[in-house]
């Protein structure tokens, strides 16, 4: 116990004097997330506000063939431009990305309408171009509205009630709360916290193993009359400590940053008060043991500080995998999923931010499951430290 304490405090003091550790624990991790997040949110808020209000510039070929349609489109806040010279030029313009969407009205448009034959209107677009999607959707919706209007008029002329065309009246009632809606966007928050947590202890985990070996201070350390297990426990605990600092700073920064973000304009009010900060910290804390032991384990296999940095950076990506898979499969939180470290923290955090009540069984499984995995990894580290080959 005394050895663990001695090693722990030495690593803390040593690393507080190391600029590399301080930068990664106190700056990189805690600030990277909030800054990136604020940037992304502000951008998307700006875009969605702009898109709703701004008139859509829509190039139309053959506008002279359909003056009524053009007038209808203009009434829906769409500016009609003269499109490219012909249909081929329009296809080129869209596939090169010069135009997002182009409408082509053929010469016989008016005749077909008059003869009650479905009149073709071409919408030239590139479905692979996600930026064009919004414009295309708006143009298509406007065309459909015009089509509906014409259909209604044709029925009325024949003395038929146009509403027979609508056997169903679909009414969608959205019960999502503002906090719930924000969770979609804030889902990526939990990764920022896990990232901050891992970067916080990364340098220490490397320094305590590969760094110590490279410096030549490992061999004299192993000559001391102490158990190697205790040395490694002290080092892992010190890495956990830096991870805890880093993640708590990250949580607090987010608490303040969210206050400055125009989230209300998106209809979101994330639940991220100081009580949530504290709860989130406690939920994330067990993951520090997994992170610290995993990084120590990976760094123990490497020959130098540089090599260790390369491999340990891969560990930074590890917690994203379960989160990614689950968000693609859209799985609901379940007790079984709480056994997976990083995923359980992610799901619990999303629940917190959505202002849902905490499922205490889930919390218990998450905490014990994560701690068990961490303890196992720590045990493997200790085994590794008993090997002769450790000194390289």
């Amino acid at each position: 116990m005394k050895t663990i304490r001695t090693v722990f405090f030495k690593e803390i003091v040593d690393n507080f004097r190391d600029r590399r550790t301080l930068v990664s624990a106190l700056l990189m991790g805690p600030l990277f997330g909030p800054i990136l997040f604020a940037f992304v949110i502000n951008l998307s808020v700006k875009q969605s506000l702009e898109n709703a209000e701004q008139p859509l510039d829509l190039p139309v070929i053959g506008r002279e063939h359909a003056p009524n349609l053009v007038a209808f489109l203009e009434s829906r806040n769409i500016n009609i431009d003269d499109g490219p010279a012909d249909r081929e030029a329009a296809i080129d313009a869209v596939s090169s990305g010069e135009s997002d969407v182009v409408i082509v009205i053929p010469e016989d448009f008016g005749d077909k309408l008059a003869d009650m034959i479905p009149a073709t209107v071409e919408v030239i677009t590139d479905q692979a171009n996600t930026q064009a999607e919004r414009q295309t959707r708006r143009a298509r919706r406007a065309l459909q509205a015009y089509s509906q209007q014409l259909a209604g008029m044709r029925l009325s002329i024949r003395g038929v009630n146009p509403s027979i065309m609508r056997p169903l009246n679909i009414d969608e009632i959205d019960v999502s709360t503002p906090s719930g809606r924000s969770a979609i966007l804030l889902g990526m928050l939990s990764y920022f916290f896990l990232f901050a947590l891992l970067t916080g202890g990364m340098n220490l985990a490397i320094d305590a193993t590969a760094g110590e070996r490279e410096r030549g201070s490992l061999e004299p350390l192993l000559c001391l009359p102490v158990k190697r297990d205790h040395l490694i426990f002290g080092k892992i605990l010190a890495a956990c400590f830096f991870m805890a600092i880093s993640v708590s700073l990250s949580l607090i920064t987010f608490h303040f940053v969210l206050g400055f973000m125009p989230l209300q304009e998106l209809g979101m009010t994330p639940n991220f008060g100081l009580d949530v900060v504290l709860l989130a910290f406690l939920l994330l804390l067990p993951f520090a043991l997994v992170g610290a032991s995993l990084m120590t384990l990976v760094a123990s296999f490497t020959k130098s500080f540089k090599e260790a940095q390369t491999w340990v950076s891969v560990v930074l990506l590890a917690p994203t995998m379960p989160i990614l898979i689950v968000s693609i499969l859209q799985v609901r939180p379940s007790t079984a999923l709480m056994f997976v470290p990083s995923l359980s923290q992610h799901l619990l955090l999303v629940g917190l931010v959505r202002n849902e009540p905490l499922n205490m069984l889930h919390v218990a499984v998450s905490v014990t499951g994560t701690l068990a995995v961490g303890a196992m990894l720590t045990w493997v580290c200790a085994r590794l430290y008993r090997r002769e080959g450790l000194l390289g």
Partner: protein
Amino acid sequence: MIRVDGLHKYFGEVKAVRGVSFQADDGKITGLLGPNGAGKSTTLRVLYTVLKPDSGSATIDGVDVVTGPVEARARIGTLPHGSGLYPHLTARENIAYYAKLYDMDAGIIDERVQQVIDQLDINDFADRKTKGFSQGQRTKVSLARSLVHGPQNVILDEPSNGLDVMATRALRELIRDLKRAGKCVLFSSHVMQEVAALCDEIVIISSGKVAVHDTPDGIRKVTGRDDLEEAFVRAIDMVEAGK
């Protein structure tokens, strides 16, 4: 007292040590001499329990290094080859860290650390961070931290490597002090003159075997050479021939 009996250590196909036996007594300086790759460091690493022998035994004050590694380590002060310090800690903090890990009483640590700092004459830079220390300064601090618990046995692996003349002299003086205090000092070197200048007993190792174990005078007699360096080369030739 350090005893090594029929020690073997293999690394895969490489037979680094093939039956090394010798004894290093208290109050004596024993030199482990041999060319590069002869098995000196491997033998010492078995002694300070970083490596386990494949066969044979080694004891420190009668404590077996395989069955009682922690107790054996408590009885030695070690300066492994190329010992490193913690660059962000001061020399004093580096030494105190080891004192704590040697499980010394908190009350006497400060006093004892100051004693070794005086003993090794490192007061001038004791409170500076060790980043940027010269090789000589680093060796002194490393030595201080391995002596802080006052071990009965001292094992030094090529301690004079990279030291200048003055630092080497200081080191020799320190080793003689340890001898006068009745300690058992075992150190390795590949420099004949250094061993000749210091040692009471010389163990010459070549190709993982003991070529000669004798006093400097005895070695001159066995090999029939007056010059110790000649004697050293001759002893190694004898092992090579007997292989």
